[in-house]
């Protein structure tokens, strides 16, 4: 990517890959390890989705999001979700202000949702009412307050974090809200080598300096152009069918919501442990994530490998497991792996 490139010019496949790798390298100045998580995070950004980050405390969730904002040179806000957080604390509210002529009138005061990158820290600590305040912003890129709709400026990227080990006083995200996150990225506990590097880089006097990849005035347009390029990647009908087949295979055989089901694809594990499989948004997430991966690989078409590579992060959080799965210690990612295996077998 050259600095002389105008915002209206469509970037090439090579531009995309170079920009992507550059952002990655800037993020990794502050984030040690988590290569796959960072790639998934950026993939979700350029695919036009949002990300749910799950990880134990201290794994760098907040640092990751802040670094991303710095690298992209986009506006960044952070909301710490608590039980007493109200929807207006996110979307904004109308307040009485004094005008120039001294008259008092209601004026809309935008909330922290009005930014390019929003970090919802520990989103499961807020009440469902407050969590739902993000739904409209995430899905429709707009906020409605007191009957007035306020558009959000693209690019709009929501990253919410979840703490999986401290569940008291939390409100698990409703399925509808979970479904609106393109990927769920899991930040694993760092390995020993990485932990040493983390100690070294964070306890010294010198802080990591993140160089923005874009100029502040053109960053939104540049990110939008890259997002548009992702949409231009060609998905052959066979690949779309493959993604659809995977998503349908996550539905259990006995699901009364699915109707006619491809029984030959159903894995016994799915029937046993899944209460409800992925929604159609899961198929969209598969294809969009695959498109980003194709561009990173220098291709203008998606392949089965791309679809399979993003399957776990795109589908795992959309699969509702039943009690048997929880009691047997089965995770949704295992279900997705089994589904991929059965679909592969059916194809061959």
């Amino acid at each position, binding site marked *: 990517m050259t600095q002389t490139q105008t915002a209206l010019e*469509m970037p*090439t*496949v*090579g531009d995309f890959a170079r920009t992507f790798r550059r952002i990655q390298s800037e993020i990794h100045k502050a984030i040690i390890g988590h290569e796959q998580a960072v790639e998934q995070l950026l993939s979700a950004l350029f695919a036009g989705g949002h990300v749910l980050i799950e990880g134990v405390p201290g794994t760098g969730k907040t640092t990751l999001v802040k670094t991303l904002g710095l690298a992209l040179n986009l506006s960044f806000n952070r909301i710490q979700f608590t039980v007493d957080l109200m929807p207006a604390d996110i979307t904004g509210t109308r307040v009485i202000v004094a005008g120039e002529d001294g008259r008092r009138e209601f004026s809309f005061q935008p909330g922290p949702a009005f930014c390019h990158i929003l970090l919802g820290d520990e989103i499961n600590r807020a009440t469902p009412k407050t969590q739902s305040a993000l739904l409209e912003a995430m899905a429709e890129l707009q906020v409605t307050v007191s009957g007035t709709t306020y558009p959000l400026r693209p690019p709009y990227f929501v990253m919410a974090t979840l703490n999986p080990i401290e569940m008291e006083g939390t409100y698990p995200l409703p399925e509808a809200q979970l479904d609106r996150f393109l990927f769920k990225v899991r930040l694993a506990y760092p390995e020993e080598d990485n932990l040493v590097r983390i100690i070294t880089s964070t306890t010294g006097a010198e802080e990591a300096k993140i160089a923005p990849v874009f100029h502040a005035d053109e960053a939104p347009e540049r990110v939008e152009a890259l997002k548009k*390029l992702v949409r*231009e*990647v*060609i*998905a*052959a*009908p*066979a*690949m779309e069918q493959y993604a659809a087949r995977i998503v349908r295979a996550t539905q259990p055989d006995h699901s009364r919501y699915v109707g006619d089901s491809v029984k030959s694809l159903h894995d016994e594990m799915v029937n046993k442990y899944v209460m409800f499989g992925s929604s159609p948004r899961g198929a969209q997430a598969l294809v969009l994530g695959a498109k980003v991966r194709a561009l990173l*690989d*220098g*291709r*203008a*078409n*998606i*392949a*089965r*490998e*791309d679809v399979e590579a993003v399957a776990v992060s795109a589908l795992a959080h959309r699969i509702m497991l039943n009690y048997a799965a929880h009691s047997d210690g089965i995770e949704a990612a295992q279900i997705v792996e089994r589904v991929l295996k059965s679909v592969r077998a059916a194809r061959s």
Partner: protein
Amino acid sequence: MPPSVHGPRAQEKLDVILGQVTGLRSRLNWLAAQHVIYLLFAIGITTAVVFFAGAVLLTPMQFLVVGIVTAIAGLYALVLTLRSGWRRRSNAARAAALADDRAGLKGRLTTIVQTVSFGRRSVLWSYLVEDALSHREEFVPRQIERRRIARSWWAPVAAMALATVLIPLARSHHKLKMAAAAQGGDSDMTVDLDDLHLRPAEPGDKTGLQVRADSATMARLREKMAREGEAATRGDGGKFSGLLNRARNLADSVQSKLRGDSNQKQRLTLKLADNDAGLDPSNPRGPDLNRNTRHGDQAGQFKRDNPVDDEATLPPIDDSLREPDAEPSAGENGDAAAESGARGSTLNGANDPSHNGPDDDVARGDQSYNGGAVHGIGADPDSLFGEASKSRMSTEGFEIAIEARPVDQGIKGAGQAYLPPKVHTPLNTHQEPDEPIARAAVPPDDRTTIERVFER
């Protein structure tokens, strides 16, 4: 990174890619066609070999069973092969997918082929074409599919090998069998009449058979033939056994054709014995009517199995070889009976109207078995136009059965009697009206006679 391409050059590049995909598709389809052809050859050869070996080595019934099973298996294999070939056929998308998989092109060709088919274009289309073209050396048809001959070539070769081994073995076995039979040489056999099972011969089965027996035994033979014919006419298991016989004879004739046997069969002399001593020749029917006949005894079949060929057909009887010591009547009628037996136990002694000897009714069977009445036993064309039946023809008269009961018994339970409606039909205009018959005058000479009659 390949540069973008536009315009006619992009179309040329696309044509190059699609041309290679088409070449690969042709190669794959040719292999699929070869696969079908090879397997069809293999099925055909194997089936023929099994048929031939069965014809040579097995008895007719065994051959029948094996033949049916082989035919069914062959048809099933044929269907499976055609279905397999149909599934192996390739279209452009399938060929492209194969090339993608084998050359590691990550769906480039599949995307191009399907995008061309569906007409979806993107700003990245030119890039995709250029990108795929840069890998064209990797999806040259002969590299993607190196084979020129389908893997199933071994099937016809294996079938040929099987034929090469099995056919000479079967032939040698057949020759050995024939040689052993030729050494045995004796074409005469003696059969007890009770062990003789009569069954109809195939039409045109002109076998040579000479039956030698004393007159009483010949009479009993005719009686037996009549009974067998009657049983067949009544349908006492005749349908099934007839069907079985037909199937067996068919298998026999197929076996003969497959073996290449000549039609000239060995002459057979069947010597009939009768274990029932004390038979009265003048009344041969009497004590024998209730004798049990052992049906189904293959050894005692009237059409004796050829020692060389199982159940071979035999040439017709040569009249010159008749036993000179046979009784004239028995000889004459026995000839008729034997001939009828030789022609398949058709009981068609009536074919020759000149046979009017004392036992002619036996040789011809009862009147009810004459002519066409008994032709169904063997369906022998020679017997179809026998002497006309003496029974009344349907046009000579008729009988109407009327259900009636005496009036004394009342009409209870008989239902309401049908009363025809009164219909007044106008008379024909030319019809003369009914006139009362005028009483004729009685001649005086007759008056006395009339009065006497009425007095009685």
